């Protein structure tokens, strides 16, 4: 599968809203306080106000459902929504939960971002699929997002 770097994106997580046990698992909403992104074709900041609606399933896999708004440095707004999965060996997941730094190769953290924008300069984002590798840090994840060619 050919791909090419679209951006790296660092997201700052604000608070966690623990909804608790729900029919499909355990729901925790991580609010997004901000962040930034940078790539060959676009760069800018993550606006505060989004969130990641995470669901810990019964099989131990964490489902991710991120919705945020990006603002490019020339003022375009881009809606980003991504579904993802995070899982790994119990010791790696426990270390992440303690806020420790873990080699991202030690666990599976992948997402599939989709973009929507009304800005003509960035309309190519409406017409691509992408895959991201995540690296969970204590203050929020870093995503390396690649366009699927």
């Amino acid at each position, binding site marked *: 599968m050919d791909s090419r770097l679209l951006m790296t994106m660092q997201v700052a997580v604000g608070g966690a809203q623990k909804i608790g046990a729900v029919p499909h698992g355990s729901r925790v909403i991580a609010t997004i306080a901000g962040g930034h992104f940078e790539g060959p074709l676009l760069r800018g900041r993550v606006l505060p106000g989004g969130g990641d609606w995470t669901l810990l399933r019964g099989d131990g896999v964490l489902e991710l459902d991120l919705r945020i708004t990006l603002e490019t440095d020339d003022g375009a707004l881009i809606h980003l929504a991504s*579904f993802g999965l995070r899982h790994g060996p119990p010791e790696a997941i426990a270390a992440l939960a303690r806020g420790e730094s873990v080699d991202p190769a030690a666990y599976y953290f992948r997402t599939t971002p989709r973009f929507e924008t009304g800005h003509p300069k960035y309309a190519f984002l409406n017409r691509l699929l992408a895959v991201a590798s995540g690296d969970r840090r204590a203050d929020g994840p870093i995503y390396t997002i690649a366009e699927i060619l």
Partner: protein
Amino acid sequence: MRTRPLMTLRLSTASPQGIGSVPHGTRITFPIIGGSFEGERLRGKVLPGGGDWVIKRADGVLELDLRITLEIDDGALVHMTFEGIRNDGAPGAPYFRTLPRFETTDARYSFLNRLLAVGTGEISADGPVHRIEEIL
């Protein structure tokens, strides 16, 4: 991005159902009446009864929304969905890519519950063909 082949999926569709102009574009539903899939780790047939709920957007791009059931040759059932886009007007060559997801209760195939995947589609004379790779 590292990937590994998961399967090649061939679908047979019945006549499309043209729902027509709806708020998000033009809706066309493709009933799926069968098909087959084959990969190193699993192979079998597509059960009739699923479909691809397609929207043609105002910018000409097709948004795909597929739901089917796979039956592996040893009897395990796998629920499969994908979202995808097909842009026949993409520069160079058509862009037809999907993001399949799987659900199964069969322990032999539970790895499918824990992976994300990418498919590359094309329309053959017999129907759509998707080459699906696991995202490693």
